[in-house]
C-alpha cells in the first residue's frame, strides 16, 4: 500500500537512516559524557565516538581528520567560513567573490560583511545556472581574499566547475570555499583533488540528524585559519567553541560512512528514477527543465509548467511533498531568486516544482508522482484562460493586462 503524501523534498531535508539512528543511540543514553572531559572514562568514551566520526567524515571527502570543525549545521558553517576568513585575513584584503544563486546562508553573510566594510562581487549565472570562469577571472583583484561558490545548487542541482574555480582563486592568491551542503554524500567530493580550502556541509541532507554540520578547514598548503565567531572554551582548535554535540557528530560520521559505501549504487538508482520522472513529466507540453542537465546532482530535477499558477499547482499535487519556485507567504508572491537568476520570467519561476529523491524513494512512488503531477497540470490548464489563449495562438505578451 502506497502511503500518502509521498516525500520528494529531500533537498530540504532527508529522513534519518535507521542505521544512523542505531549508531547514535548509545550516545543519547549511556555514553553521555562531555567529549572535553579529559579526567574520566565518561569523557573518554564520548571523545572516542567523536574521533571515530572525524575519521568517517574525512574518508568521505579525502581530508585529514584534524581538518574537521564541528558546527550546528551548514548555515553556521557558511557563516564561520566567510566571516572567519574576512576577519582573519583583513590585513590582506577585504574582497569576497560569490554568485547570485548561493543559499541565503552565504548571500546574507556576504551582505553582513559588506556592512562591516567588505566588498563583495556577486557573479551572475547563465541560463543553466553556471557561472562564467571569464567573469570570475575578471572579478579577481589583489584585494580578493575569498572566492565562495556552492558545489551543487539546492533548487536546481546544478554543479559548478569547482576545480576550475579553485584554480583561478589560487592563481590570484585567494582562498576557495564551497558550500557543499547538497553535494557532499551525493557525488564524489575530494577536497584535495578539487582544490577546496574551506567547505561547509551538514548531516541532515545525507540521512543524518538535524542540528549538526561541519566546516572543513585546510591545514596545509596553505594552512587556513578562520576567526571564531563565538567566544568560549576554545573547542575545535579554537575555531568553534561549545560542548560538542556527541550524538549528532556520531550520526554525521555514520551518515558519511554510509554515503561513501553506497554512493555509487544510490547514484545509479536515483538518477535512473529521476530521469524517468523527468522524461515522463516533460511529455507535457510547455514544460521546461530548469538548470543544467549535463552538470547536476543525480537526485534532483526542477521543472516549470507554463500556464499554470504555482500555488494552485501546489494545491493540485497535495499527495506529494515537493517545493515550488514561489515562496508565497503573503499576498505578494516572491518567485525564487535562483530561478530568476537563470533568467526565468516570474510566471515560469512560480510554476516550477522541485523534486528531490532519496535513498528511500521507490519506483512505485515515482509512478504515482508522475500520474499525480500530469493530472494536476492537465486539470489546471483546462481551467486556465492563459492556456486557452496560448492554444488559440494569442500572444500573451501583447495583451494589456489590468494590473491590480
Amino acid at each position: 500500500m502506497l502511503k500518502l503524501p509521498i516525500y520528494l523534498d529531500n533537498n530540504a531535508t532527508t529522513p534519518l537512516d535507521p542505521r544512523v539512528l542505531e549508531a547514535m543511540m548509545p550516545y543519547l543514553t549511556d555514553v553521555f559524557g562531555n567529549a572535553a572531559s579529559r579526567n574520566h572514562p565518561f569523557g573518554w568514551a564520548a571523545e572516542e565516538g567523536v574521533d571515530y566520526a572525524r575519521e568517517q567524515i574525512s574518508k568521505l571527502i579525502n581530508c585529514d581528520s584534524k581538518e574537521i570543525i564541528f558546527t550546528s549545521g551548514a548555515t553556521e558553517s557558511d557563516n564561520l567560513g566567510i566571516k572567519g576568513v574576512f576577519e582573519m585575513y583583513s590585513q590582506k584584503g577585504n574582497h569576497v567573490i560569490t554568485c547570485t544563486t548561493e543559499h541565503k546562508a552565504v548571500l546574507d553573510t556576504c551582505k553582513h560583511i559588506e556592512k562591516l566594510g567588505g566588498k563583495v562581487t556577486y557573479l551572475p549565472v547563465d541560463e543553466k545556472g553556471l557561472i562564467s570562469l571569464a567573469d570570475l577571472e575578471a572579478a579577481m583583484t589583489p584585494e580578493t581574499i575569498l572566492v565562495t561558490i556552492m558545489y551543487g545548487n539546492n533548487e536546481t542541482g546544478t554543479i559548478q566547475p569547482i576545480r576550475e574555480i579553485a584554480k583561478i582563486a589560487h592563481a590570484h592568491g585567494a582562498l576557495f570555499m564551497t558550500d557543499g551542503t547538497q553535494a557532499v554524500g551525493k557525488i564524489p567530493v575530494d577536497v584535495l583533488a578539487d582544490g577546496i580550502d574551506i567547505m561547509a556541509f551538514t548531516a541532515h541532507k545525507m540521512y543524518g540528524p538535524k542540528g549538526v554540520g561541519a566546516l572543513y578547514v585546510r591545514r596545509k598548503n596553505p594552512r587556513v585559519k578562520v576567526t571564531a565567531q563565538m567566544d568560549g572554551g576554545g573547542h575545535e582548535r579554537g575555531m568553534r567553541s561549545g560542548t560538542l554535540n556527541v550524538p549528532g557528530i556520531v550520526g554525521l560520521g555514520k551518515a558519511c560512512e554510509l554515503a561513501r559505501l553506497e554512493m555509487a549504487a544510490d547514484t545509479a538508482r536515483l538518477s535512473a528514477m529521476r530521469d524517468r520522472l523527468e522524461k515522463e513529466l516533460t511529455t507535457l507540453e510547455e514544460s521546461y527543465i530548469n538548470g543544467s542537465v549535463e552538470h547536476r546532482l543525480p537526485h534532483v530535477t526542477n521543472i516549470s509548467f507554463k500556464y499554470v499558477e504555482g500555488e494552485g499547482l501546489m494545491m493540485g499535487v497535495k499527495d506529494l511533498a515537493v517545493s515550488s519556485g514561489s515562496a508565497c507567504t503573503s499576498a505578494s508572491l516572491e518567485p525564487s531568486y535562483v530561478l530568476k537568476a537563470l533568467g526565468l520570467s516570474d510566471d515560469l519561476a512560480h510554476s516550477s516544482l522541485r523534486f528531490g529523491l532519496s535513498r528511500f524513494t521507490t519506483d512505485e512512488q515515482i509512478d504515482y508522482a508522475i500520474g499525480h503531477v500530469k493530472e494536476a497540470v492537465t486539470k489546471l490548464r483546462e481551467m486556465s484562460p492563459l492556456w486557452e489563449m496560448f492554444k488559440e495562438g494569442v500572444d500573451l505578451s501583447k495583451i494589456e493586462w489590468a494590473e491590480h
Partner: protein
Amino acid sequence: MAYSDKVIDHYSNPRNVGTLDKSKKNVGTGLVGAPECGDVMRLQIEVDEATNTITDAKFKTFGCGSAIASSSLATEWLKGKSIDEALAIDNMEIVEELALPPVKIHCSVLAEDAIKSAISDYRVKNGLPALELSHH
C-alpha cells in the same frame, strides 16, 4: 496554508468551467488580473435580453486555490440573477462564504472586478455606456 473546506471543494470540483461564445451580442466577457501577479480570471455571462437575467455563467482562472474558488462561486451566484442583482455582489460576501484568510482577500476582489467587467462588456455591446470600474 490551510484552505477552508469550501475552497477545497470548489478547487477540486469547480463549477461552470468553460467558455461562452464571445461573439454573441448577449455574452459579456471580463478578463482581469495579470499573469505576473499570479492571477488571471476570465468570467463570462450570457444574458436573456427580454428579462435582463443572467442565464449562464462560465469561468476560467489561472491562479491559486482561492482565486479558482472565488470565480467558481461567482459563476454559481450569477446564474438566475438580474444584472442589477449581479452588480450588487460584494467581494466581502465571497470572503465570508469561502472563509478566505486576509492574504487571500485580493482573490475575492478580483472576482468582483471580473463580474463588473463582464457586465460592462455586455453593456457596451448593447449600446450602453461602460461601467466605471473601480480598481481596488
